[in-house]
């Protein structure tokens, strides 16, 4: 073997390693995919936080024990992604069987802007999406520490800018009856998400 061949081999091997490690074995070319894959694998538990919803009720997450929870993260001043996210959530909501909603599954929109999104604001915002406040609740987490922990656990990245807006990633999160995160779904694919949830619900009925 001459040095040229060896050095080319080393360079190629190094680069292969770099790309392999950097993309989790050519699985994840965006951080979002990597994060989702990771979350689905580790299934973190929803941490103990206190929610305050649009009806000014406060409760911890155990309120939903025994039910699936379909979650999105948003803030009401958002003009770009969030309205779309919530609209898509509404479309998923509509596609589920009426009897299951509220019984087997609850929808929850969590605001990561507790300072501005007080119950009154959330209540107004709720109206835009025909959320009933019961089977689809909108809530904030008043305690910033608790909120940060939840965002950290669920891999939600929220970066405030100077104008009261945030850069953030968006997805549908599904927490199972035991309070573990089981799936992170692409929020732009409404039908796919609805089918998935329906399948889970149907599956459980079958058992």
């Amino acid at each position, binding site marked *: 073997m001459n040095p*040229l061949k060896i050095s080319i081999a080393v360079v*190629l091997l190094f680069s292969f390693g770099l790309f392999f490690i*950097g993309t989790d074995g050519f699985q994840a*070319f965006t951080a979002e995919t990597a994060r989702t894959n990771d979350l689905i694998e580790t299934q973190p538990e929803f941490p103990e936080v206190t929610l305050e919803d649009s009806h000014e009720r406060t409760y911890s997450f155990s309120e939903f024990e025994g039910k699936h929870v379909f979650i999105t993260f948003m803030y009401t001043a958002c003009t770009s992604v969030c309205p779309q996210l919530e609209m898509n959530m509404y479309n998923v909501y509509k596609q589920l069987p009426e009897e299951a909603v509220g019984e087997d599954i609850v929808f929850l929109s969590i605001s990561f802007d507790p300072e501005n999104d007080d119950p009154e604001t959330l209540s107004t915002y709720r109206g835009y999406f025909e959320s009933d406040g019961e089977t689809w609740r909108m809530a904030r987490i008043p305690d910033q520490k608790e909120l940060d922990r939840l965002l950290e656990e669920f891999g939600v*990245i929220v970066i405030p800018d100077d104008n009261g807006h945030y*850069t953030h*990633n968006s997805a549908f999160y599904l927490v199972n009856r035991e309070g573990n995160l089981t799936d992170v779904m692409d929020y732009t694919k409404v039908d796919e998400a609805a089918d998935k949830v329906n399948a889970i619900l149907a599956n459980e009925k079958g058992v």
Partner: protein
Amino acid sequence: MQPIIGLIMFLFLMLPPVANLLESIMIFHMHMQMPLIAISGFLMAPFFMEKFPKFFAKWNERGIPGIILFTLVMTYWSIPRAMDDALTMYSVELFKFISLAFLAGVPLRASWMKLTDFWKNAVFVFFTLQYGLMGLIYLMSDSQLCNNYLQSEQITLGWGFLTVAIALLIYLIQLVIIDPSDYE
């Protein structure tokens, strides 16, 4: 002189406020900071080439291993994931600085003069295609590719890639239609 300027530039780019500013906007991060780090390495290269002439002569025959390393490292850093990781993980950020300077900038300098015209043009063709392709990916993608940057910034970056690709394409076209031997 050049290696000192390179080193100063490298350290300057590492200063937290400078790094933060350049990383605050997606296109600055990819098309300003990263090339600047590579350029700092390019400037530092003579220091290593003089210090270890044998190493470069033996292991970088005809410049080919070096240019492959340069190309692949640069390509790696155009993946959206890599950029996100650099922002969230300190180790990746450090690796970004080291790899772009010493595994892209240095090998580029150590290789370029040794390359034949064929290889030089191949590098231009490769980057034209890569930039064009990355531009289209960033422009066409419906979803947010980087968690740390907005989708609108992604479009800007896409146009950045495309315009550089177009400039490179113009360069390639003139290589084809203008024969330098007519003038030189």
